[in-house]
């Protein structure tokens, strides 16, 4: 067994038989199973673990849990690495690798420590003052500042671990398994409630894990005896779920609480292992037993390594069997630090003195300390510290009579550690997130839970209990009453009797005086905010704590100011001459401690990130080597390159074929809504801008639907299948939203209409064929159907058999060619497709994808909802006055089409654009100007909405929305690009076959 210099010979809960090797900054160390990284480092005498954010000052381990501001390390390497991990909450495992952050080139010799020498030049708001004006210089400074001040590195690859999420419901959720939480869970469980007990630590027990019980008795035994018996009791209750290593990070509405369970963080890790589980718990009752967080004291040079919280020092001694040093000074304003002094003394650590800011120190705990021979210096303060990488001495002076300055001689106390306590702040984070009100306790100088807004109780140290007896009785009481509130009235238990010393009053001390003016006293250790910075912010006019916080960055680090926020608030209040509650408290926001993106994402990664929808003919497209594009969740064939074809070559070929021979398109993704009921025609009449009542059975009609503000929402062809039966089609991406839209109007505005809407998108496979040979192709497969142009007219429907499959065939066209849309039940989609391809061989059938479809429709000037229209475009803007029937009565959006804004003649209107060079294809989204200036800004009068090369026209074409565009036909406009200006001429947006001759061919 290798020697760990500061490991005490006995005591603690670590497994001394199990030695664990780990590395820190490349050096190998040993600890024990049960250690945290922090306790193992301290056992090896390592206090210096990092550099501060701004000044790069040496910083040591400060706390013993999730409150830790200083000891942030980078864990692991490669893709499995995590920055900003608190060494105090990282469980030690064999092979753990940790490195310091924010230091260069090394931890002990950090060149940027030079910032510290020039700290006078880095006052509060330094970044705002120096770099923000002129704004463009920020770009230059930013990358240097970010490099100098970075906290950690991101992983360099895909996360190899697995994460999962689970939902849970319970009667009583108890958060925190310290004495109060355990008692509450026990009482609720005994009463018959379904309980979840979660605690962020690896071992349940909270403060009891650090309680040696030398001065405290629970029932007939020690606190540890009670803990053991209680845990055994809870483990035996079927309806109690114990969740160690589980942090309640967020408390949301209706008792919804997010828990993060670290399933595998304490293990070396294998690829694919379950690392974390996110619990989404809905609890009927919540009991918060989240304990209290010790505050630091704000005194001169309080940030040297070796200076830590007294409670943390006590935890290291009692729970981990580690001495924080060999000679220590305790500095306090309350009795709790005396327990630390006593425990350290009992463990053989030399306690030089307890320096107590209070004048009267007479309670049980100070008496025990004095009896143990520990010098108590009441009415004294620490006025400064020494030591480069570790504290080596503190200077102590007497407080003056007013308590606001120092008097007498300076005494130097040599030491290698300081244990300080500024009092305790109830951990009200979750209570506040649950929208509970906080009240200020003058006596203890802290915020406590006030009126709750949800079914939540606070018990123990996070409420108002400082002594174990109060924690246990409050826990039992809360557990019982929560159980009763959910109707569980089973067995009742009693809290055990506790014998413990009394606690004397604390004395708020927000800033310990010093004889040295201007000396730095740190309030926020992680972000290097000093008391002086706060003073300056107040002098510069920042009077709201929310503003002071952002200006100085106090409380904005990864620790969210858990140990320093109340101090900062009090200092600001003092400076303003205001009461603390009047200055307010900064908002507590989730998460309580950082949550990984992995846990938030859960299993929604890779193939499960978003559902993928495929058409029945998908495999054929894959076999043919199609390139795909995503349209909503659909995979659509984009184009089908042959051989070495480029995209442009393939699309040109497909577009030509659709006009010269026959093209075939998989159109199954088209949204389809089955609309039935005696009022279906009336309903369509109100939903679309044109008239629907006179549409004959078996006929199709194109419609545009608007929102009630008159803006185009969607368009498509609807077929009347029967007197009371229609089949509506929508654009691929809008199918779901159109159905919701129809439902909304039917349910909320027109409940009197008897209409039913059903989505049938996936019930039908749709194949579109078009081109001069489309009719011949179809005729070969549908010998029973009447296909001659006189009897099967454009915009009509026929039912029959195609390739032996029952089909509904629509004669419609989105390309300007003769076209047929063949709908068959989905499961016949592939068979139909194969039959068409086989039969089409002699006609030179060419499959085309969505890109060719877009070019074909653009050649015809057909708009696409969501491309030409973007939610700010009326049908009149699109030049589609013909689709609006003003005489049929009201329809959605009608009144808006005559609003003063929608009738302006300088609205953007749909036009075509020809570039002066026919080979130039404009970028979609390009801004158009009438007058080119040397440099921006220029007046932008419109933008390009669609732009393609048209092989049928042998030149580029573009559609654009241009202010007053219809009045500009023939005008020359400009598209200013970074490297050139492109000249364009405004044209009609119908580029090809403007009279529609081909449709009737």
């Amino acid at each position, binding site marked *: 067994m290798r020697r760990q210099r500061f490991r005490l010979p006995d005591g603690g809960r670590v497994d001394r038989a199990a030695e664990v090797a780990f590395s820190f900054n490349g050096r190998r160390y040993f600890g024990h199973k049960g250690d945290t990284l922090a306790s193992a480092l301290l056992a090896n005498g390592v206090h210096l673990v990092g550099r501060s954010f701004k000044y790069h000052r040496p910083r040591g381990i400060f706390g013993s849990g999730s409150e830790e501001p200083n000891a942030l390390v980078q864990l692991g390497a490669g893709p499995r690495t995590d920055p900003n991990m608190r060494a105090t909450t990282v469980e030690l495992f064999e092979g753990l690798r940790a490195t310091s952050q924010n230091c260069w080139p090394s931890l002990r010799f950090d060149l940027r420590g030079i910032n510290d020498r020039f700290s006078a030049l880095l006052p509060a708001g330094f970044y705002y003052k120096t770099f923000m004006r002129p704004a463009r210089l920020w770009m230059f400074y930013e990358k240097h500042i970010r490099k100098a001040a970075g906290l950690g590195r991101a992983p360099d690859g895909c996360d190899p671990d697995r994460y999962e999420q689970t939902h849970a419901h319970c009667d009583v959720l108890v958060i925190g398994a310290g004495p109060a939480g355990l008692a509450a869970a026990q009482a609720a469980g005994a009463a018959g409630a379904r309980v979840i007990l979660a605690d962020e630590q690896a071992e349940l027990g909270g403060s009891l894990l650090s309680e040696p019980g030398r001065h405290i008795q629970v029932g007939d035994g020690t606190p540890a005896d009670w803990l053991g018996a209680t845990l055994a009791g809870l483990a035996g209750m079927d309806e109690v779920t114990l969740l160690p290593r589980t942090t309640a990070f967020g408390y949301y*509405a*209706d008792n919804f609480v997010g828990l993060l369970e670290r399933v595998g963080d304490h293990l070396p890790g294998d690829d694919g292992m379950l690392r974390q589980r996110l619990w989404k718990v809905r609890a009927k009752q919540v009991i918060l037993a989240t304990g209290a967080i010790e505050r630091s004291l704000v005194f001169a040079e309080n940030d040297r390594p070796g200076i830590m919280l007294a409670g943390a020092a006590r935890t290291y001694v009692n729970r981990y069997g580690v001495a924080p040093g060999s000679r220590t000074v305790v500095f306090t304003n309350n009795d709790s630090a005396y327990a630390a002094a006593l425990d350290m003394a009992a463990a053989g650590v030399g306690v030089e003195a307890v320096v107590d800011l209070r004048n009267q120190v007479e309670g049980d705990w100070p008496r025990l300390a004095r009896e143990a021979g520990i010098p108590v210096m009441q009415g004294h303060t620490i006025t400064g510290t020494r030591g480069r990488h570790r504290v080596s001495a503190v200077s102590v002076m007497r407080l003056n009579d007013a308590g606001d300055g120092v008097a007498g001689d300076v005494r130097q106390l040599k030491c290698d550690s300081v244990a300080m306590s500024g009092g305790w702040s109830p951990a009200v984070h979750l209570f506040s997130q649950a929208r509970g009100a906080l009240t200020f306790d003058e006596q203890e100088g802290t915020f406590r839970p006030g009126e709750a807004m949800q079914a939540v109780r606070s018990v123990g140290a996070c409420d108002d209990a400082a002594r174990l007896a109060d924690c246990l009785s409050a826990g039992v009481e809360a557990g019982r009453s929560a159980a009763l509130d959910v109707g569980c009235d089973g067995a009742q238990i009693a809290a055990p009797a506790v014998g413990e010393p009394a606690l004397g009053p604390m004395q708020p001390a927000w800033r310990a005086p010093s004889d040295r003016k201007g000396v730095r006293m740190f309030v926020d250790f992680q972000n290097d905010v000093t008391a002086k910075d706060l003073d300056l912010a107040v002098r510069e006019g920042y009077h709201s704590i929310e503003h002071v916080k952002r200006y100085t960055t106090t409380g904005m680090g990864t620790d969210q100011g858990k140990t320093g926020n109340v101090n900062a608030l009090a200092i600001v209040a003092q400076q303003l001459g205001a009461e603390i509650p009047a200055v307010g408290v900064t908002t507590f926001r989730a998460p309580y401690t950082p949550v990984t993106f992995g846990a938030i994402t859960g299993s929604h990664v890779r193939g499960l990130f978003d559902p993928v929808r495929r058409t029945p003919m998908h495999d054929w497209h894959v076999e043919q080597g199609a390139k795909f594009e995503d349209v909503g969740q659909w995979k659509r064939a984009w184009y089908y390159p042959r051989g070495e074809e480029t995209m442009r070559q393939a699309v040109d070929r497909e577009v030509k074929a659709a006009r010269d021979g026959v093209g075939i398109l998989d159109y199954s993704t088209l949204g389809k809504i089955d609309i039935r009921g005696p009022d279906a025609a009336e309903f369509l009449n109100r939903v679309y801008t044109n008239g629907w009542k006179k549409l004959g059975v078996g006929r199709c009609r194109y419609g545009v639907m608007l929102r009630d*503000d008159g803006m185009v929402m969607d368009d498509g062809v609807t077929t009347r299948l029967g007197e009371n039966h229609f089949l509506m089609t929508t654009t691929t991406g809008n199918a779901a939203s159109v159905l919701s839209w129809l439902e909304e109007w039917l349910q909320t505005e027109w*409940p009197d209409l008897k209409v039913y809407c059903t989505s049938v998108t996936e019930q039908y496979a749709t194949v579109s064929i078009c081109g001069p040979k489309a009719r011949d192709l179809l005729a070969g497969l549908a010998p029973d159907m009447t296909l001659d142009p006189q009897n099967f007219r454009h915009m009509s429907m026929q039912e029959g058999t195609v390739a032996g499959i029952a089909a509904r065939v629509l004669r419609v066209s989105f390309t300007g060619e003769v076209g047929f849309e063949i709908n068959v039940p989905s499961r016949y989609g592939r068979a139909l497709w194969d039959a068409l391809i086989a039969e089409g061989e002699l006609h030179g059938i060419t499959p085309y994808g969505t890109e060719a479809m877009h070019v074909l429709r653009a050649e015809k000037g057909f708009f696409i909802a969501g491309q030409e229209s973007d939610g700010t475009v009326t049908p009149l803007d699109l030049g589609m006055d013909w689709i609006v029937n003003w005489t049929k009565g009201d329809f959605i959006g009608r009144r808006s089409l005559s609003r003063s804004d929608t009738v302006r003649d300088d609205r953007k209107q749909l036009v075509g654009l020809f570039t002066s060079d026919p080979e130039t294809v404009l970028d979609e989204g390009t801004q158009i100007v009438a007058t080119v200036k040397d440099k921006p800004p220029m007046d932008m009068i419109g933008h390009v909405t669609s732009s393609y090369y048209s092989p049928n026209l042998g030149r580029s074409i573009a559609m654009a929305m241009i202010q007053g565009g219809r009045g500009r036909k023939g005008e020359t406009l400009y598209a200013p690009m970074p490297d050139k200006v492109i000249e364009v001429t405004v044209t009609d947006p119908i580029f090809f076959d403007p009279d529609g001759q081909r449709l009737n061919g």
Partner: protein
Amino acid sequence: MLLIPCPWCGERDVHEFHCGGEAHITRPAGADTIDDAAWADYLFMRQNPKGLYYERWNHAHGCRKWFHVVRDTVSDQILAVYQMDEAPPDIPGRSS
């Protein structure tokens, strides 16, 4: 994470619902005869009260039914749920 009591399905997580904004906005009849300002008021203007808010919700990932909710915007508490064709209920001790 609000728990919303759908009148047909019972309490469900807010993720299953779509909020349709303020309730009881009357779509003007005879729209042709009203002026732009009145039409714009119907289209665009909504309350943003601190306190009782009467809203429309749709159980979009459930029964797809629309219904009304009275929610206190201060506490996020849902105080009543009622059908589309019902008048807003009185909330004891509260005035809207």
